[in-house]
Structure formats: C-alpha cells, structure tokens
C-alpha cells in the first residue's frame, strides 16, 4: 500500500533529523569542554597595568585577547585586575604618588601572582615606584621599545618588543599599487608616534630613489587630511601610529584611519590592525589582540610553573601578519591575487562559489526541512481529509437528523431527552428546551404512561430493538399518536418515532367509509328482499292472527276448552317471538354499525342468513340444503359483516339460477375446516361463469344483473380481506358455480361445537 510505504519513509526521515540534532548539539559542547584543560589556576591573581588611559584601542584590543586566553586557561575573572595609570594625561609626580598609594591600598593585602604591563611606563612604574609594594612578582612587559633595558634580577620579566613591519607593509602596498609615485606617511607627533616614525624613516630609506616620501607628522591632523585629500590616486598613504598630533590633540589610529579614508583618493595602508576595518586597505599588521592572546598564553605558562628559560631576557615575539580589508581592496580596485598566501581578509563579501559548501549544506538542510514539512503537511492533510470525511459524514448525519420528518431522540433511562431533532418542535409544538427540561413521560398521554414506562424499563434491561406506540400530548392540548422504534446503548436510548396520527385517522375514516358502503349495500340488498322479508314476518303474524281468532271463538263457545286456549296463547307468544327475531335480524343488518370483531361460529352466521332468506328461496323455488360441519373452530369476525357476505353469496346463487326451470334450482351450503382455516362454500346449479369473469366479478360496479349495483361481491371481498380471509369462485364440474370463502382460525381458538 503506498500510504504505508510513505509512512515508513516518514519515520526514517524523522530518525535522520533526530540524529542531526543529536550530533550537532555535542559539537558545541565538545568545543566548550576543550577549554577547561588546565586546572589549579583558579586562585592565581593577575594585575594588568595600562600605562595610559584604559580605553585606548591598543589596550582594549590587547585586554580582549589577553582576558580571552586567560579565562579559557582557567583564570577566574574575579582574579584579574585591570588598572590604567593614565600617565600620558597626568605626567606629574603628584599623580604618581597617588597612584602608588592607590596601588598600596588596592593590592597591599593581596597576593598577586603575575603582573602584565603595557608600554614601558607601566613597567617602570612597577619596578621603580612599587618596588617594595609588589616585589618579586613575575612580569610580562608588553610593548617595550627595542632599546629599553630590562632588569634581569630579582624577578622574572618576560619582555615583548613589538615588531612594526613597515617594510613588509610597503612591499605589499607596492605590489598592490605597482605604479605608485608618492608615499604619504601619516603619523602622530607623540613620543610614541615619533619612535615609530623614526623606524619608518630608517626602513623606508631604500625606496627613496623611486618613491617620493612625504612625512606629515609635523602638521596638525586637519592639515594632514587636507594634504591627503589632494594626494593623486597613484599614491600610497601609509598610516603609522597616531596618539596625538603636533597640536597636542589626542587621537587614536582607528579614528585617524576613518578620517583619512573619507578624504583620500589613494589607498591607505597601515601597520596596526586596530586601523583595519576603519578605512585602511591593509598591510603587514601588528594585531594587539594577537599580542594579548600570545601574552595570555605566556602568562598561563608562567603561572603554571614553567621553568625560567635558558635565554635571558625572556622574550615574547609576536610577528605582524598580512591583513586586508576586502571592501577597501574593492574600493581601490586592488587585485586580491597579489596578496601573499595566508593573508587574513576581513569584511569579505563572499561569492556564492565561496559559500558553495555552506550553500550545499544549507540546501540539504532546507531540502530536508522542506521534505519534513511536506511530510508533515501530507500527514496533516491526510488527517485533515480523514477528519474532513468524518466531518462530512457527521454533517450528513446532522443534516439527515435535521431534515427527517420522523422524531429522533437520544434519551437516558432516567427519562430525560439528551438530544432531539427539529421535527419534535414541529410535531409537538414545544421547543426542544421545554422538552428537555422535563422527564419525557410528562408529555405522554396518561393512558399510555404505563405502557411507555414498561417499554423504557424493557430498554434499560435488555439490549434489543423494541417497537411500541403511544400518544404524546402537544402544547396545544391535542394528542399525536407516535409509532416508536427504540434501541438501548448503555445508559442511553436511541429512538425514532413516527407521527402516525393522520395515518390512523385516515385508516379510521377509511374503515368508516367502508362500513358505510357495506351498510348501504346491506340496505340495498334488504330492499331487494323486501317482499320475501315481508313474507317472513307475515308467517308468524298470520299464525298469531289465526291463533288469536281461534282463541276468541273458543272463548265465545258455551264451554270453552281452556286447555286449548292456553296452548293457543303459548303459540302466539312463540310466533310473536319469531317475528321479533326476524325484525331483530333485519334491524341488525340495516343498522349502521362499526366493525366489531368477536369470536363467532361461521355455521350460525350461515344458519341465520338462510333463515332470513327462507321466504325468498321459497318464492324463487330454490331448494337450499346445508352440510355444516359442527366441529369447525370459531373465527374472529364481525357478525353483521359476515352475514352480509353470506347473504350476498346465497342471493347470488339464487339469482344465478333464474333461468333454470322449477325444481332444478338447488343451492348447497357447506362449511368445513382445513388446518388453520375455516371454509364455507355456496354452490348453485345455475349456468356457471365464463372463466374470464371469475376474478372480474369481485371488482366494484361489475354486474351481470340488470338491476344490480355490482357492489355485492366487491364489498364481500373487502370484508373478507379485512378478516384476513379469502374469497373466490370456481365453476362446478357438472353445472353451476361455487363461491368459497376462508377465514383464519385465531391461534388461541379451540374447536367449538355447534350450539
């Protein structure tokens, strides 16, 4: 499956990313750990003394390199003391005295392990002014002029004589600016600056023939800048040291370099790295930071107990390095290829090629990251689509929940609705809030309450679908009949109800209409039978009349036979009852009655009907015979309606034989039982039916009789259908047809004998 493979790749990818992170972290950590190699130096104290103001770039840079190295060597920052003697701005003896006092106060009680001095003034101060205050403590003396005498007794002194590579710088400058005609040497007028300029005058001697060298230290800075601004482009500007100009304004080399750079039309070279980045193109530069770094290293050696070296004095040599400013090279269009190997270049603006490994690494990283992101996106999208389809399904269900006409609900077995669909509001008129505020059986019709609670308890105890019906009372007081299907799920009941009120009303109405139709059909049949029925009533009436008249005559006789009279009266009563029975049957048949199912004997139904039709049979000269099985089971039915069916079948049989001659009209009525069915058959000896009419005759308004409505059999069929029975007709093998009807025996009905 592609999805599964994708997921496997995804896992691999995550593992890779994790590994990258794991291995990246420790690299940083390893670097940090490497620094802490030397131990036991935490307690060593070092004093750093600047001869002049502490914020001079040379000191800042040196301190920077120095403290970096010392800290990484294990010297505590707490134990590094920086003091600026500020002897340039305060040359008087008073200040010196105060300085000594200050030193005494600050370091008299402290044990110092090493003193690092910068410039000879500080070394002199330590040795001469603080000789008894700070005795015997080893010294590393930085930035000493070549000619100074370094005392060799009493303590270890490591001397550093900075080498200013003026020759190297000029050589480089000439390589970069090959056709240079003029060399402008910019230098301060301070003693320190002078020392450097002296060296320059010596070193530059050899280029005098080819180069016009102009020294500008005799001018104030402003004039120097003017001079430089008018220097032709094929010149070389060489910046040496610049502590203060001839006017006595203190300066720093970087500031001067910046100002030069702003006005110069020719490239500027220097000998100190503090000027690099401030406008000079470069040169063979002395880096104060490297000096500090190297001094720090030597200090750690001294503090670590390195033996006194054989050579004296102990010397620290820090060579100048070729260093350039990439931007300045570009500015002056100086060829990078002319630079010596190993040149340090700052401000390099890297080309893409220079960065190719970084770019490749970055690209790989970006690619990896993109891949990761893509994976995540894909995963998110998958989840989203899964969520989406789930949401869609939920939405669909919600929509169905909202639009269905059925009442849907989730309720608990406590009797509260938890969720209802909008159909509830429509059907019952209550808001959902109202419905959910009360137990649901408070909305149930009181008569249906017991049944509903039984259904709920059934749901609570068993986990199957149940069906029931009940009535709910609407807000307007009317009742709705609901048909329920409900299933339990834990403490919840999921139920759907259908409002079947209208359907039931329609059914009732339909039943009423059918009852009415059946009634009309009965009335119509009775009308046809009026003559025969009159005869049926006339017989007992006539008997009564004759009996009564006979009685009267007996009573008028001189010796009435009272026994005879009594018998007559008994017969009168009997005949009256007989007439009454006929009338009752008529009334029953003519009555407009609702369908009422009761257990009844189909034999009695036929017997009563035959009794009613006796006269008609006589008038029509039809011989009616019966074979009624007395052992048939009771059926459930409406007596009047089944009599109506019997009446129809028998009358149809009579009428089917209208064409037959006298004495040939016979009707046989039979009943019997077959399994769970009770059957009745009415057979006539008429002409039978054409085969194609055996079904048609049950259709409404189908008639073969000139005066018939064509409703009799259709109504009979609808009656029998309502009794779950069947009615049909078959032609007899010899002559005539037989109408059959069958009715189901209810499951709990036994066999009853004929009454």
């Amino acid at each position, binding site marked *: 499956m592609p999805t599964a493979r994708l997921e496997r790749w995804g896992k691999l990818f995550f593992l890779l990313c994790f590994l990258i992170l794991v291995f990246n972290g420790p690299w940083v950590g390893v670097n940090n750990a490497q620094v802490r190699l030397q131990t036991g130096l935490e307690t060593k104290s070092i004093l750093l003394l600047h001869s002049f103001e502490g914020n001079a770039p040379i000191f800042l840079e040196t301190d920077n390199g120095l403290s970096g190295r010392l800290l990484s060597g294990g010297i505590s920052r707490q134990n590094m003391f920086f003091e600026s003697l500020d002897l340039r701005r305060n040359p008087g003896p008073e200040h010196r005295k105060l300085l000594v006092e200050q030193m005494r106060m600050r370091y008299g009680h402290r044990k110092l392990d090493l003193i690092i001095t910068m410039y000879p003034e500080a070394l002199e101060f330590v040795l001469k002014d603080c000789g008894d205050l700070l005795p015997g403590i080893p010294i590393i003396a930085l930035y000493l002029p070549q000619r100074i005498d370094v005392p060799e007794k009493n303590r270890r002194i490591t001397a550093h004589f900075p080498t200013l590579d003026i020759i190297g710088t000029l050589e480089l400058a000439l390589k970069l600016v090959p056709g240079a005609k003029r060399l402008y040497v910019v230098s301060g007028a301070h003693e320190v600056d002078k020392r450097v300029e002296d060296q320059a005058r010596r070193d530059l001697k050899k280029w005098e023939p080819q180069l016009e060298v102009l020294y500008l230290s005799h001018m104030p800075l402003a004039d120097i800048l003017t001079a430089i601004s008018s220097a032709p482009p094929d010149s070389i500007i060489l910046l040496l040291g610049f502590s203060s100009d001839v006017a006595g304004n203190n300066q720093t080399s970087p500031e001067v370099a910046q100002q030069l750079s702003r006005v110069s039309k020719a490239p500027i070279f220097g000998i100190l790295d503090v000027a690099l980045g401030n406008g000079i193109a470069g040169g063979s530069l002395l880096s104060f930071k490297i000096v500090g770094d190297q001094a720090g290293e030597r200090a750690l050696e001294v503090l670590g107990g390195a033996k006194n070296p054989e050579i004296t004095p102990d010397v620290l040599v820090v060579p100048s390095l070729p260093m350039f400013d990439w931007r300045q090279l570009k500015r002056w269009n100086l060829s990078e290829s002319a630079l010596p190997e190993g040149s340090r270049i700052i401000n390099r603006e890297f080309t893409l090629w220079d960065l190719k490994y970084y770019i490749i690494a970055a690209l790989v990283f970006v690619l990896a990251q993109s891949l990761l992101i893509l994976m995540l996106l894909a995963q998110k999208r998958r989840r989203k689509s899964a969520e989406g389809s789930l949401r869609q399904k939920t939405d669909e269900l919600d929509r169905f929940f909202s639009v269905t006409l059925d009442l849907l609900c989730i309720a608990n077995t406590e009797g509260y609705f938890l969720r209802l669909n909008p159909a509830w509001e429509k059907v019952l008129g209550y808001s959902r809030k109202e419905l959910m505020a009360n137990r649901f059986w408070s909305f149930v019709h009181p008569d249906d309450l017991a049944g509903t609670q039984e259904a709920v308890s059934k749901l609570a105890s068993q986990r199957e679908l149940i069906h029931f019906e009940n009535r709910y009372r609407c807000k307007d007081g009317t009742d709705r009949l609901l048909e329920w299907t409900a299933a339990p799920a834990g403490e919840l009941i999921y139920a759907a109800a259908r409002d079947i009120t209208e359907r039931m009303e329609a059914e009732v109405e339909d039943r009423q209409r059918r009852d009415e139709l059946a009634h009309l059909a009965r009335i119509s049949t009775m009308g046809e039978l009026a003559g025969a029925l009159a005869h049926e009533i006339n017989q007992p009436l006539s008997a009564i009349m004759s009996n009564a008249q006979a009685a009267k005559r007996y009573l008028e006789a001189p010796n009435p036979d009272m026994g005879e009279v009594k018998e007559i009266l008994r017969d009168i009563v009997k005949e009256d009852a007989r007439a009454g029975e006929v009338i009752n049957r008529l009334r029953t048949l003519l009555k407009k009655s609702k369908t009422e199912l009761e257990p009844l004997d189909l034999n009695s139904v036929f017997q009563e009907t035959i009794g009613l039709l006796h*006269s008609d049979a006589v008038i029509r000269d039809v011989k009616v015979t019966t074979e009624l099985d007395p052992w048939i089971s009771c059926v459930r039915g409406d007596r009047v309606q089944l009599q109506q069916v019997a009446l129809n079948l028998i009358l149809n049989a009579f009428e089917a034989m209208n064409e037959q001659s006298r004495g040939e009209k016979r009707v046989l009525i039979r009943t019997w039982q077959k399994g769970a069915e009770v059957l009745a058959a009415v057979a006539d000896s008429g002409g039978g039916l054409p085969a194609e009419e055996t079904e048609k005759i049950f259709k409404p308004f189908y008639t073969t009789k000139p005066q018939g409505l064509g409703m009799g059999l259709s109504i009979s069929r609808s009656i029998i259908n309502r009794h779950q029975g069947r009615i049909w007709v078959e032609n007899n093998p010899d002559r005539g047809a037989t109408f059959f009807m069958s009715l189901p025996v209810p499951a709990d009905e036994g066999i009853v004998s004929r009454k």
Partner: protein
Amino acid sequence: MTEPHPTVFVVDDDAAVRKSLVRLLKSAGYHAESFASADEFIECRKRNSLPGCALVDIQMPGIDGLQLQRELINSTHEIPIIFITGYGDIPSSVKAMKAGAVDFFSKPFNDDDLLRAIREAIQRDQRERSERAERVSLAARLATLTPREREVLDLVVRGLLNKQIAAALGASEKTIKIHRGRVMAKMKAPSVADLVRAAEKIGTPPGSPPPPDR
C-alpha cells in the same frame, strides 16, 4: 245425505301457520286436516277425495300452490281452493282466480272473511260434487246405449225431427222412433228437454262424430 262431513285441507309449509289455521277452522266447527307440502296433499287426494275445500299457501317449496291447483284441476280429485299468501303479488292472484280459485287472501287475514270463503267453497264443492255425480250417472247411462242409439241421441240433441234423423241415418221413421224411445228410457229422461240438458252436462259424447259419408 250420505256424503261425509266436509273437510278443510290446509296446505302450508309453515308449521305454525298450518297449526293456527287448523285451530281456527276447528274453532269454527270445521273438520280440518293439514299438509306440509303439495305432494303430501296430492297423495292424500289420490287415496280418497273427501268433500270439502283446500286452504293453500301459494309459496311453498317444491310444488307451489298454483302448480297444485293445476294438478288438481287435471285430476279427478278436484276440490275448491282458497289461496292464502304472505307475499301478495297481483300476477299470482290473477292466475289463481282465473284457474278457478274460490278466493285469495293475503296474510294476515280476517277470520270472518276466510270462514265465509270456506263456507262458499264447501258449498261449491257440494254442488260440484253432485254435478259430478250426476254427470257420472248420465255417463253410465250413456254407456248403456248401443252405437245406433248414440247416433240417434246425438241427432235428437241437435234438434232434428224423427223424419230428418231417419233420413240422416237411412232408416225408417218408425225405427228411429223406437230407438228414440229406448234412448229416452236408458237415459232416464222424461222429456226431450231433459235429454238435451243431460247431454249438455256430459258434453259432447265421445265416439259420436257425424257419419263421414252418409
């Protein structure tokens, strides 16, 4: 009269009606017998044709009243019939009356009317029975005549004179006179008028067509 007491024969398929009618008739002093069907009554009549009348319900299973009437008319057991019906339809009553019914009653009926009709029927029966008896004796007398005497009787009844008869029969007037005297004696007719009346009563005597070629 040697005639037995007249009987009213009640024919009705309805037992109660039958019983009540018999009772009514008895209360009025009649002798009554009842039959549940026409068949039963016909059987009875075949055995003996007692005098009286019949009270018959028109609507009966099997042979109905009108059929019974027809059968009785066509038999030697004729008896006056009074019809009763619970289903008084005019066509039936017309048919019944035309066929010689004494009366036709719709149930329920007035006892006086019925009894009057019964009386009338019995009288008619008596009359008819005596007429019938006379006819029987005349027929018996007729049967004693020789064929020649039958021819003479026939012509006498037609009103021919002796001379004409003699001419018709090709005999002498004297011979005819003797035949005529014998006929009168055999037929026990005191006068020619009586002889004519007797001949009328028995109808056209059988086997007395005019001679074909004389």
